[in-house]
């Protein structure tokens, strides 16, 4: 019994929890009444059995009376919900197959959705971790001649002029990245640093955890070097020692004083930055005459200015600078929000994925609607009885919706587990700087999203069957004994058609992405990527002046060549195809008009050692490549690629050309020694650029990539690193990997896209074949009697089976046609994602349709087989 004290609402609330106590109470009380009635009848001379029956009849439906009893005692709605919930749980436990199918279907849909939402949330929805982060902009230079390249570095001169002239930008900071070897701690460490001007930290508005940040006094050419540590680096190498501020460490054998530690989670653009140091740029020297563009600029928009105003102002300033300086003649300026810069690459593919999971969830929901319809059809009799007993439409709808909500929330919880698991997998597969988030977690926001999505799906899938149930004619259903009344087959068939269409869209997308991946992996790119081991070795400037660098790398290449099993070895400023070139610059060819700086032709510059082209199997088309005999200073000439010849040397014999390339202070005219084949520049997808190759002797580098061709390149990793260490034990040898795996890493994002879309497509295929199976199985059950009669009359079993399978395949065909048409329209816009295949690739579409038909045939065959197994006698006895 409910407690009798306290306000009524409290008693009602308490009553909810004493439900079973009250149930017992009523059982006892009503039992006593029925017993007494029975005794009364017995005394009038009835047999005990008859007496009990008469008593029960007179008393009425105990179950319903108890329900009404509960109703009057508590807030009726709450009680109803709880009753329906108990009813639903009981019902679902009774049909575990159905429940499992629905819960799993929803779990897949909600899980995939939640996982992708978590990424979308982290990348696109959450504010950047800087106060007023949406006012932070990146500023890049643009070039009229190179409109396709989005992010250009900035000349310090332009940065300073913008800073001086802009009124809409509150401040502009310069930064660039560097990689150092840090000593003076337990073990030498390779660190990723960001060199930042004194404006940087105040602009971002983040305070240090300990000590101070880079200040004006640090940011001078000859100021003592300072270091601000990232939180993770501090924890890892200093064990979180708060006394670290003031300590001195060495970078490239020079002292750096640690002045501060940043709070946990502070990062800027790059996830893997370990330390920050002062830029120490001399702001007084005429940078336009001294150097090119090599800094990045970040700015903060003034609170009272808009991005558009600032863009307009900066365009005016850039135009004025272009008019004043030859250096600026072809350059403009581009402002973008920091968020856009951070997520620009990923945002598109992320939104595509988000759309894909949306489709997946709709398929899942359609499926569940179908299953629920089938179930409510088999329960029509129960519903009819309930409504004839006075259950209103609202009560029936409420019960249906509660059942589907229960299913959806269970599915949602399982979905969260799936999301958690797939996020871990995503982080494991994705390269670290791709998503630019430290971690992906299912937190309260994401959990809230999942729960909301579950409830929404539960409501949506519950309402349709409920509405159909209410519309059923009660009388007709009762008369027909719960069978044989046409029940929304059109809706269900329509749902299967929709599912199939959506599945086809996902499968076509996945198929095209898979073919793109195959094409990318198999792309030739003008080099032979097999059996090549690569590694990077950077030299500290203090110990390695220019002439020592050349000697070191020549020695390194020689010692690699001496290793057993090595066919060839060479070095270059970076890896072919995926590595960045040394730069781009202008050149002048003897016999042509000498144009102004901004009108001169531009070429890409790469630096290589003799044997480079042979090592990578890049064909030498004319002349020769660099040889050891060229190793004099200055070198006797350049090597160029075919793209260079095509663009700049039409109708000229390349080997007769003499040119000057503006890379150094002195740029003597030298001949072209040879022409080599084209190699993709920048990525597997890219075309070759007109390129001039320098011999390392002609343009020294302090960081080079070594390449070794050997029969078993992978096995060479350890001996190769040891060979380098024998020359100088204090050098860090990094990125030891095969050329192929370097290329594969560069494709990580695309592979991830293809994998994720592929797994969505497979899930969709699974779900819609389940949906088709469910529909046909149900229709066969519905037609049991008809099938029985037909079998009894001698219908051929094969024809019966064919009619079931045919019915299924017909729906699939309609869905497939719609799906293909929509795919053709949709995928056309995804053309930029594709490589080596067009959006109209017949092979992909044919493959998708073949797979779909195969799976659909299987999904139809199983119910069809059941149809042929119908026993005529049993079928007829069912009535």
């Amino acid at each position: 019994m409910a407690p009798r004290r306290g306000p009524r609402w409290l008693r009602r609330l308490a009553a909810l929890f004493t439900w079973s106590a009250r149930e017992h109470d009523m059982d006892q009380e009503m039992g006593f009444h029925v017993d007494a009635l029975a005794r009364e009848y017995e005394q009038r001379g009835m047999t005990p059995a008859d007496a009990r029956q008469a008593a029960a009849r007179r008393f009425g439906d105990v179950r319903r009376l108890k329900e009404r009893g509960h109703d009057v005692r508590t807030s009726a709605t709450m009680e109803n919900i709880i009753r329906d919930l108990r009813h639903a749980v009981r019902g679902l436990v009774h049909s575990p197959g159905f429940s499992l199918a629905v819960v799993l279907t929803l779990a897949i849909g909600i899980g995939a959705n939640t996982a992708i939402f978590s990424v979308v949330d982290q990348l696109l929805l959450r504010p950047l971790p800087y106060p007023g982060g949406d006012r932070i902009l990146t500023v890049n230079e643009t070039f009229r001649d190179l409109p396709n390249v989005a992010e250009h570095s900035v000349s310090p001169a332009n940065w300073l002029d913008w800073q001086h002239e802009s009124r809409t930008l509150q401040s502009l900071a310069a930064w660039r990245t560097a990689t150092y070897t840090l000593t003076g701690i337990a073990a030498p460490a390779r660190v990723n640093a960001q060199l930042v001007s004194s404006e940087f930290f105040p602009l971002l508005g983040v305070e240090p955890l300990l000590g101070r940040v880079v200040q004006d006094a640090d940011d001078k050419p000859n100021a003592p070097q300072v270091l601000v540590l990232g939180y993770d680096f501090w924890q890892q190498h200093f064990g979180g020692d708060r006394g670290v501020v003031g300590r001195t460490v060495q970078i490239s054998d020079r002292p750096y004083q640690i002045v501060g530690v940043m709070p946990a989670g502070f990062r800027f653009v790059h996830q893997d930055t370990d330390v920050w140091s002062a830029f120490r740029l001399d702001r007084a020297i005429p940078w336009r005459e001294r150097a090119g563009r090599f800094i990045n600029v970040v700015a903060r928009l003034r609170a009272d200015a808009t991005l558009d105003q600032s863009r307009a102002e900066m365009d005016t300033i850039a135009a004025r600078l272009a008019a004043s300086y030859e250096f600026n003649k072809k350059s403009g300026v581009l402002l973008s929000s920091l968020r856009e810069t951070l997520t620009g690459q990923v945002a598109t593919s992320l939104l595509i994925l988000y759309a894909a999971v949306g489709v997946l969830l709709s398929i899942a929901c359609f499926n569940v609607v179908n299953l629920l319809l089938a179930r409510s059809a088999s329960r029509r009799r129960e519903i009819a009885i309930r409504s004839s007993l006075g259950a209103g439409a609202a009560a029936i709808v409420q019960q249906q919706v509660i059942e589907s909500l229960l299913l959806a929330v269970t599915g949602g919880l399982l979905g969260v587990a799936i999301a958690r698991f797939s996020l871990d997998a995503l982080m494991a597969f994705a390269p670290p700087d791709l998503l630019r988030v430290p971690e992906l977690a299912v937190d309260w926001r994401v959990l809230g999203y999942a729960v909301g999505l579950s409830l929404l799906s539960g409501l949506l899938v519950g309402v349709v069957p409920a509405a159909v149930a209410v519309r059923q004619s009660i009388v007709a259903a009762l008369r027909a004994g719960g069978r044989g009344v046409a029940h929304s087959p059109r809706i269900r068939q329509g749902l299967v058609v929709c599912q199939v269409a959506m599945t086809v869209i996902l499968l076509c997308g996945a198929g095209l992405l898979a073919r793109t991946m195959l094409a990318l992996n198999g792309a030739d790119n003008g080099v032979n990527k097999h059996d090549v081991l690569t590694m990077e070795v950077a030299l500290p400037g203090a110990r390695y002046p220019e002439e020592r660098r050349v000697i070191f790398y020549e020695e390194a290449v020689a010692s690699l060549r001496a290793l057993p099993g090595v066919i060839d070895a060479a070095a270059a400023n970076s890896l072919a195809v995926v590595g960045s070139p040394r730069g781009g610059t202008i050149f002048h060819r003897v016999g042509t008009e000498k144009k102004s700086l901004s009108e001169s032709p531009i070429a890409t510059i790469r630096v290589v050692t003799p044997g480079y082209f042979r090592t990578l199997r890049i064909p030498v088309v004319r002349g020769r490549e660099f040889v050891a005999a060229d190793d004099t200073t200055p070198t006797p000439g350049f090597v160029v690629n075919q793209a260079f010849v095509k663009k700049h040397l039409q109708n000229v014999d390349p080997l007769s050309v003499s040119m000057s390339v503006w890379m150094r202070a002195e740029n003597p005219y030298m001949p072209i020694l040879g022409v080599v084949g084209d190699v993709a520049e920048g990525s597997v997808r890219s075309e070759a650029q007109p390129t001039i190759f320098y011999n390392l002797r002609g343009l020294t580098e302090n960081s080079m990539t070594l390449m070794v061709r050997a029969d078993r390149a992978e096995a060479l990793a350890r001996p190769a690193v040891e060979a380098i260490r024998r020359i100088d034990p204090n050098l860090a040898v990094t990125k030891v990997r095969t050329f192929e795996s370097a290329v594969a890493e560069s494709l990580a994002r695309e592979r991830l896209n293809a994998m994720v879309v592929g797994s969505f497509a497979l899930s969709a295929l699974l779900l819609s074949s389940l949906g088709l199976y469910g529909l046909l199985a149900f229709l066969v059950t519905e037609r049991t009697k008809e099938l029985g009669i037909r079998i009894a009359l001698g219908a051929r079993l094969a024809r019966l089976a064919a009619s079931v399978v045919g019915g299924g395949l017909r729906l699939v065909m309609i869905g497939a046609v719609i799906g293909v048409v929509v795919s053709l329209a949709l995928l056309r816009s995804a053309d930029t994602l594709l490589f080596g295949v067009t959006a109209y690739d017949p092979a992909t579409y044919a493959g998708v349709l073949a797979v779909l038909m195969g799976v659909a045939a299987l999904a139809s065959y199983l119910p069809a087989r059941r149809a042929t197994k119908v026993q005529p006698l049993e079928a007829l006895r069912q009535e």
Partner: protein
Amino acid sequence: MAVRRVDLLQGTLDLLVLKVLAGGANHGYGIASRIHQLSADALKVEEGSLYPALYRMEEQGLIEAEWGPTENNRRAKFYQLTRKGRAAAEAELEGWLRLSGGITRVLRALEQGA
């Protein structure tokens, strides 16, 4: 239409229960038997529908219940009027009499007028 009839029935049933309990505490079966003696119609639908009515009146604070032994030494739940219930019984009775008297007068007048 049906709903109104139930309301009317319910009102009558409540009044009858109050009237029966005014004669002393009783269990559900006892109340039902007593009502049968008074009017066979009120519990015509099903005798068990007495219970939801009892629970509702208990909720309204008109009656209270206690488990106790019957004459045959079985356990039963006995209901009795609260002070509020006693007052309600009189008020309801008065109201009912006034209403039924009014209706009777109207019906008579109509009959005579017709």
